[in-house]
């Protein structure tokens, strides 16, 4: 059907996008890989040179490294858990006939449009501040000691903030999926005497599985690279309590100028992302075939 001419035209039209993305992916990554085997310190150029795997060793021996990997995974898993479960519950609630549904939807979706540094600073200062925050006001109202969120539970605090940002996204997508569920099927199940729970497990949940897959994929991409939220709230601390892999790499590269180690960390971050992506992409690819 497609002639030789249209096919070459198609290639020509695709070329700019493909070439741009290819260059953008491969050039910096090649640099990073090269730096990861080099000793390179802009402040001390005398000792530069090839050092084999020692950057990986140094990164590996750094106690912050395991903390960072663990924190990265904790953030991803905790936020996924909160947003998926919370999102399903919220979607079920918003799917009910309610007055003012349009306004409710707008209120619920709003946090998604708040830029990360604003979200983090608002939570840090207006909500979780141990002296002037709303949580502290509530604690004082009940006569208890306000919690010092960023001092005592820094990772939990970051997770709460990030979950607040992504819950609306999960809710909106799951709600959209829920609303495309065939009404007749629901009625038929009801007529057959299926209760709310069994209707949910056997009808609603399978229907939403595709949407849930997509939510997991998209959120994982963004959650693996949480940065601004940590920068403006805890700065990775206290100690390494809330340092994730992106933040550790940033610290090594731009604060300590240990480029070799930072690059090794970057390569590890890429490998980690690829492992996650491999599974996620397969799931999405399968779903898109349907």
């Amino acid at each position, binding site marked *: 059907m*497609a002639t030789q001419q249209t096919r070459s035209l*198609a290639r020509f*039209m*695709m070329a700019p*996008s*493909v070439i*741009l*993305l290819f260059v*953008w*992916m491969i050039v*910096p*990554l090649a*640099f990073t890989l090269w730096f990861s085997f080099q000793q390179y310190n802009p402040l001390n150029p005398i000792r530069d040179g090839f050092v084999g795997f020692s950057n990986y060793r140094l990164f590996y021996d750094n106690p912050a490294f395991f903390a960072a990997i663990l924190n990265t995974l904790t953030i991803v898993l905790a936020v996924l858990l909160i947003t998926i479960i919370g999102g399903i519950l*919220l979607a079920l609630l918003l799917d*009910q*006939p*309610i*007055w*003012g549904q349009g306004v*409710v*939807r707008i*209120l*619920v*979706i709003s946090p998604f*449009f*708040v*830029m990360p*540094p*604003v*979200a983090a*600073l*608002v939570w840090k200062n207006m909500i979780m501040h141990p002296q*002037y925050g709303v949580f502290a*006001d509530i604690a004082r109202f009940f006569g208890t000691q306000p919690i010092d969120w960023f001092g005592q539970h820094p990772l939990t605090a970051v997770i709460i903030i990030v979950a*607040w940002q992504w819950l*609306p996204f999960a809710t*909106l*997508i799951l709600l*959209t999926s829920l609303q495309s569920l065939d009404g007749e099927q629901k009625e038929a199940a009801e007529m057959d005497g299926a209760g709310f729970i069994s209707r949910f497990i056997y009808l609603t949940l399978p229907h939403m599985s*595709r*949407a849930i897959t*997509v939510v997991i994929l*998209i959120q994982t991409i963004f959650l693996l*690279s949480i*940065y601004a939220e940590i920068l*403006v709230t805890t700065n990775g601390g206290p100690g390494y309590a809330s340092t994730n892999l*992106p933040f550790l790499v*940033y610290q090594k*590269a*731009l604060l300590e100028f240990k*480029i070799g180690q*930072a690059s090794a960390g*970057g*390569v590890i*971050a*890429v490998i980690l*992302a690829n492992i*996650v992506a491999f599974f996620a*992409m397969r799931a999405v690819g399968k*779903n898109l075939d349907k």
Partner: protein
Amino acid sequence: MARAVTTQHKTIATAAAWIVALLIFFPILYTIITSFKSEQEAIQGFALIPSGTTESYAEVQAQSGYFKFFLNSVILSVGSTILALLVAVPAAWSMAFSPSKRTKDILMWMLSTKMMPAVAVLFPIYLIFRDTGLLDSRIGLTVMLMLINLPIVVWMLYTYFREIPGEILEAARMDGASLWNEIIYVLTPMAVPGIASTMLLNIILAWNEAFWTIRLTTTNAAPLTAFISSFSSPQGLFWAKLSAASTLAIAPILIMGWFSQKQLVRGLTFGAVK
């Protein structure tokens, strides 16, 4: 009887939904309220009614020049979006209308470039930008944001274009329409809604991008994300000022976002959920 149950059900659901929605919206609402308080008021404990002063807004503009950052945000997000569309429209178009065996692989590969963690390439990009004089320049950052969002733009356009029936083109051709007429009268009207939706979502994503915009700028090209981050180390009483600055930073995109809920679902799920 059945009707009474329905009304009761609706009342309970409505109450529950509104409570949850207001709780979720509360941090934003309270920030807006606090922005209309004086600094003294802002730290005097929980209060939902502000005195209504706008002194914080005036001070934010006077002290840090909010408007310059706002302008940069507009230039960067709109500029990078238009640039991305220029590159992506032909690509998505050819993928949708003359797909080959490899089209899907190319699309998946494009998506996979989004998976690369930005930090992994932070230093190389930093070096490239420094050596080419692009650090803290609007042009450099515009190109950066364009590259970051290009995969999503291609994907989104592709899902829209794919829905334009190919037969309609053939019909137009049979009626003797020239290629030019075909583009102007048949294709454009059908493609514009998809392009507009893509543009809207992409502006939102670019506006809120908070890694490169913070790391690659200092003053000249700094958008609102960098402006807000400068509030991370508090100096004295700054709650009302922080609130005013935050409100200013999110208001334009919040309003745009409200109008783009449908496009958001579609765009960010690559057409898998509609």
